C-alpha cells in the first residue's frame, strides 16, 4: 500500500494538539519539544512529498478518498497538484520556523502551542482537501484560532486588531459560505467534490454571479485592496510567529481559495470579472508600496509591503494567463518565505528592545550582523532583486499580465522603484548609519534561535537561483488550468 503521505502531514499538527492536551500544566519545555517534533515530522514529509511529486505526469497526486458524510456526497478527498504541493511545502517551512521562533513565548505556553498547531492543521487541511465542504471547515479552523492568538499573546492594540481581523475574515467566509451553498444546490451532481464540480461546470450566468462572492470572500483574506486594512493591524498586534503564519501562509490561503474555488471552478466568471479584479489588484500593488514609505513601525512597513506583494499575486491571478498564474503561485511561495523571515527578524529585535520604531535603531548591521544579513536579504527579495526568490515570481507575473492588461501592468511596474525606495530607506535607518538609541541592547544570538532565519534566507537564495525547483511543479498546473 502506498504511504498516505498527505494524511500523515495533516495528522502531525493534529497529533501534536492531542499530545499537548495531555501534557500537565507547567511543563513548558515538554510542550515546546513536542511542537518542534511534530513540526519536524511534518516538514520531513512535506519535503518528501514535494520531491516525490511527479513533475512530468503532473495533475493531482497522492490521492486518498474516504467516505465522510455520504448523505451530502461529501468525502474526505485529499490530493495535491502543483499549487497544493507548493503551498503545503510553504506551510511546513513556516510551521517549523515559527515553532522555533515561538520558543521564547512564556505566557500560557501550552495553550499557545495548541492554538498554533490547530491553526496550522487547518491550513494543511485547506491546501490538500478537494471537498468543498471539508475545505470550508478546515478554512474556518485556520482562521478562528487567530483571534485568540492575537487577543491573548499579542501586543499593540491587540483586542482591536484581533476583533477587526476576525470580523473581516468571518465576513469573507460568510460570502464563501453563500457561494458554497449555491454551488451545492445549483450543480446537477449535488456533490461537494471539487473535481466533479469543476468538470461538470456551471452555466455562464451562474459563474458570473458566484465568482465575485469567491473573489471577495477569499480576497479579503488575501488582503486585496481596498479590503486590506485588517491585515497590517493584525500583523502588528500578533505575536511574532503568528505574524509569520498570518502573512506567510494564511494570506496565501485566500489567494489559493480564489484560484481553486474561484478561477478553476468558475473560469467564465473569472474571465468576466478579470478587469475589475485586475484593477483593484494593481491598485493594491502600487498603493501598498506607496503607503509603506510612510511607516515608521517595522511591522506596519512589512504589513503594507505585504499588501503590495499580495496585490501582485492577485494581479497575476486576475490576468489569468499561463505565465501570470505561474508567477502568482511562485509569488505566494516567495512572499511566504520572505515575510516569515521579516517577522522573525523583527520579533527578534522587539524581544530585546521592545520597540519596532525604525528611528530607535541604526547601525544594527554592525551589532547583529547575522540577523541583519537575513533581514536585508528578505528586503532585497522584496524589491525583486534577481538571484533571490522574489524575482522569478515578479517577472512571470508582469510578463504574463502584460499580455492581458498592458496598461494596468505599466501602472503596476513602477512599484519596483517605489518598493526599492521604502525598503532601502528602512534598511538604511535600521541597519546602517550611526547607532540608534536602542541598538546597544541588541545582540546576535545562538545557533538554535538564529536557525529559522538562516534557513529562510537560504531558501530565498535557493529559489532565486534555481527557480525550476519550483516552476517545474507549478508550470504543468498553470498550463492545465488554461485548457
Amino acid at each position, binding site marked *: 500500500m502506498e504511504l498516505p503521505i498527505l494524511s500523515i502531514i495533516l495528522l502531525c499538527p493534529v497529533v501534536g494538539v492531542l499530545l499537548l492536551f495531555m501534557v500537565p500544566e507547567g511543563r513548558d519545555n515538554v510542550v515546546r519539544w513536542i511542537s518542534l517534533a511534530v513540526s519536524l515530522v511534518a516538514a520531513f514529509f512535506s519535503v518528501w512529498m514535494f520531491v516525490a511529486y511527479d513533475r512530468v505526469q503532473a495533475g493531482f497526486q497522492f490521492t486518498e478518498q474516504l467516505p465522510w458524510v455520504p448523505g451530502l456526497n461529501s468525502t474526505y478527498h485529499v490530493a495535491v497538484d502543483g499549487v497544493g504541493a507548493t503551498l503545503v511545502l510553504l506551510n511546513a517551512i513556516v510551521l517549523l520556523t515559527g515553532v522555533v521562533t515561538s520558543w521564547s513565548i512564556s505566557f500560557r505556553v501550552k495553550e499557545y502551542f495548541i492554538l498554533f498547531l490547530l491553526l496550522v492543521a487547518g491550513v494543511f487541511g485547506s491546501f490538500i482537501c478537494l471537498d468543498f465542504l471539508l475545505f470550508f471547515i478546515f478554512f474556518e479552523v485556520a482562521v478562528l484560532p487567530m483571534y485568540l492568538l492575537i487577543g491573548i499573546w499579542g501586543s499593540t492594540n491587540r483586542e482591536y486588531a484581533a*476583533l*477587526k481581523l476576525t*470580523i*473581516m475574515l468571518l465576513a469573507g467566509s460568510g460570502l464563501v459560505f*453563500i457561494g458554497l*451553498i*449555491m454551488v451545492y*444546490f*445549483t450543480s446537477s451532481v449535488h456533490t461537494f467534490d471539487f473535481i466533479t464540480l469543476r468538470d461538470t461546470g456551471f452555466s455562464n450566468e451562474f459563474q458570473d454571479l458566484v465568482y465575485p462572492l469567491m473573489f471577495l470572500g477569499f480576497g479579503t483574506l488575501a488582503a486585496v485592496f*481596498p479590503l*486590506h*486594512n*485588517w491585515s497590517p*493591524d493584525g500583523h502588528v498586534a500578533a505575536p511574532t510567529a503568528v505574524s509569520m503564519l498570518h502573512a506567510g501562509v494564511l494570506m496565501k490561503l485566500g489567494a489559493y481559495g480564489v484560484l481553486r474555488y474561484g478561477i478553476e471552478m468558475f473560469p467564465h466568471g473569472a474571465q468576466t470579472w478579470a478587469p475589475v479584479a485586475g484593477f483593484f489588484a494593481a491598485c493594491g500593488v502600487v*498603493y501598498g508600496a*506607496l*503607503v509603506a*514609505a*510612510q*511607516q515608521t513601525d517595522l511591522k506596519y512597513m512589512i504589513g503594507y509591503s505585504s499588501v503590495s506583494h499580495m496585490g501582485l499575486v492577485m494581479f497575476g491571478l486576475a490576468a489569468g494567463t499561463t505565465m501570470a498564474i*505561474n508567477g502568482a503561485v511562485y509569488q505566494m511561495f516567495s512572499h511566504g518565505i520572505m515575510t516569515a523571515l521579516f517577522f522573525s527578524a523583527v520579533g527578534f529585535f522587539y524581544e530585546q528592545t521592545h520597540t519596532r520604531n525604525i528611528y530607535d535603531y541604526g*547601525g544594527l*548591521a*554592525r551589532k547583529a550582523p547575522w540577523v541583519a544579513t537575513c533581514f536585508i536579504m528578505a528586503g*532585497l527579495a522584496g*524589491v525583486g*532583486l*534577481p*538571484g533571490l526568490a522574489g*524575482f*522569478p515570481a515578479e*517577472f*512571470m507575473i*508582469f*510578463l504574463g499580465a*502584460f*499580455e492581458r492588461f498592458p496598461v494596468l*501592468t*505599466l501602472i503596476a*511596474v*513602477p512599484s*519596483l*522603484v517605489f518598493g*526599492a*525606495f521604502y525598503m*532601502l*530607506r528602512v*534598511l*538604511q535607518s535600521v*541597519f*546602517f*548609519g*550611526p547607532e540608534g538609541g536602542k541598538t546597544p541592547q541588541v545582540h546576535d544570538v545562538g545557533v538554535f534561535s538564529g536557525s529559522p532565519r538562516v534557513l529562510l534566507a537560504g531558501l530565498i537564495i535557493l529559489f532565486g537561483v534555481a*527557480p*525550476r525547483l519550483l*516552476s*517545474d511543479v507549478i*508550470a504543468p498546473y498553470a498550463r492545465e488550468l488554461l485548457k
Partner: protein
Amino acid sequence: MFTEATQIQFGIATVLAPIASFVLIAALAMRRPMLAKIISLSGGLVSLVLASLLLFGVGEPGYKIQATWDWLLKEPAGFSIGILLDPLSLVMLWVVAVVGFLVQWYSVSYMEEDANQSKFFAFISLFCFAMMGFTIAPNLLQSFMCWELVGLGSYLLIGFWNHLPSAATAARKAFVVTRLGDLGFFAALLLAATGLGALDFGSLADSNMASGWKMGLAGYDYGVWISLALFLAVIGKSAQFPLYGWLPDAMEGPTPVSALIHAATMVAAGVYLLARTSFIVVLGSESVQTVWHGLAMLAMLTALMSGMVAIVQSDIKRVFAYSTISQLGYMVVGIGSGAVVAGMMHLFTHAFFKALLFLTAGAFIHAAHSNSITEIARAGGAKLKLPMIALGAGSLALMGIFPFAGFYSKDAILEHLFVEGDWVLYVAAMFGVLVTSYYTARVIFLMLKVPADDHLGHHLHVGGWMKLPLAVLTVGALVAGNLWMWKVEHWFHVPHGEHGNAVLITTIVSTLCALAGLYYSARVFYWKKSEDPMANWVGLANVLREKWYLDTAYDKLVHNIYLPFTAFLNRIELRFVKGALDGIGTGSMAIARTLARVMTGEVQQYVGVSFAVVAAVVIILMNR
C-alpha cells in the same frame, strides 16, 4: 587553438571564479583578512588568465559560440541563462577581468587598515561575477538579472563605510535612481518577450525578425519602443542626463570601488548594452535611427554639461566622476550615431585610463588623507613620483593627446561624425574636447602649483601593492588604443572607406582643441597670467557648483512631491480605509447588542434558523 567546448568551459570558469571567491570568503574568511585577500586575488587571477586565453587565443572575424540552459521554466523555452562568446563579449570580459584583478591587487594596500576588509573583498568578487555574467549574457533576461546584481554590488560597495550617513545615503540614491532606469530595461523585456516572442540576442538580431521590429504598437513600432525603453536603462546605469546625479555621490565608496565600478566597468554596462542591441538600428525602421540619434544628442549634452561641472570641483574624485559621465557621453554619442565599434573602442581605452586616474587619486588620498586637490598638494602630493607619472599619463589619455590611448578612440568617434556630416555633434564634441582638456589639466596644475606645506609633517608614501596596478595601467593608458587596433578591431566588420580627409582634419582639429584647453588651463592655473574665468562668470559658476540643479531637482522630487504624496495616501488609509472599517465595526456592535437578545443559547433554535435560511436559498435558486 581550443575546441568550442573548452572555450565554453573557460568562459564559464571565468565568470564563476569570482562568485566562488565570494562564497568561500563568506563561509571561511570573514574574520581572516589575509585568507580573504588570497581567495579574492586567486579568483581574480583565474578570471584574468582564462579571459586572456580566450581573447588572445581564439578570436577571428565572425567568431561566435554560445551555450544556454533553461532557467526559469522548462517550457516555454527561451527563459534561459547561458554564455555567449563573440568579439564584443570577449573584449568586455577581458576588460572586466583585467581592471578587476588590478583593483583587487591595489586594494590589498588601500584597505589594509580597514576592520572589514574581508567583506570588501567578498563584495568586490560578487561584483565581478555579476559584471562578467552581464557581459557574456546571451539574452536580455540574463542581461537584466546581472544588470540588477551589478547594481547590488554597487550599492553594497558605495555603502561599504555605511556607518557614515553620507555613504549610506549615496548608496541608496544610486540604487533607487538606477532602478528608475531599470524600469526601462524591464519594459523592454516585457515588450520583447510578448511582442517579438524572443529574448535571446541571436533571434532578435536575426534578419527574419526585421518585420517584428517594424510591427506597429501604439503609434510607433516595436523597434522604437524597445529602443526607448532600453535608453532609459542606459541613462540610469551609464549616468546620462537627467539621471547622472547618483554617480558623483557614489564617490563615497572606497576609491578602488570608484575605479572598478564607477569608472571602468559598471557605468560602461549601459554602453555595452547599446552596442549589444545596436542591431535594432539595422533591422528597425527609419524612426529607430532617429531615436538613436536623439540619444546621441542627449549624450552630447550630458558630455558638455558634466564636463563643465568638472571644472569647478575641488574634490579630486569628483572631478574624475564628472569626467566619467562626460566620457560615457562620448561613447553613447558614438554608438547612438552609428559608430558602434568606435564607441566600444572608447569604452576599452577609457577603462584603462580612467581606472588609472581613480587609482592614482586613491594613492594621493591614501597618502594625504584628504580628497581635496589643494589639500593633497599642500600635503606634498606632487612629490609622489609614481602617482604623478600616472596622473600625467592618465590625464594625457583623457585629453586625447597623441600617442595616448584616448587619442585614437575619441578621434574614431569624431571621424565618424565627420564622415556622416553630423556637424552639430561634431562641433559640440570638439568643444567638449577643449573642456575636457581644460579641467583635466587643472588638476595637474593645481597639484604642481599649490606649495607643499612642510609644517604638515606628512611623510607620504605609496602602499606597496598600489604600485603594480598604477604601473600596468600607465602602460595601458599609453597603448590600449594600439592594442585595440592591433588585436580587436579586425574582428568587427568595420567598413573601411577612404576617409583620408576625415582622419586628417579631425586629428588636427581635435589636437588643436585639446592643446587649446591645456594652454588656457596653464595660463589660469600654472602661470596665473589669466584670471580664472569662473571668477568672472559668477552666474555660470554657481550653476556649475549646483551641478545644473539636478540634485536639487531630485531632492525636490522626493521631498516635495513623492513623500507628500505617500503621506497623503497614508492619511487616506487611516481616515477612510481604516475609518470605514471602524465605522462598520461600531455600527455592527450596535446591531449585535440588539441581536444578542435573539441568542438564547438553545441549539434547536439555531438549527431551526439555519435550516430556514438554507431552505430559503434553495427555494430562491430553484425558482430562478
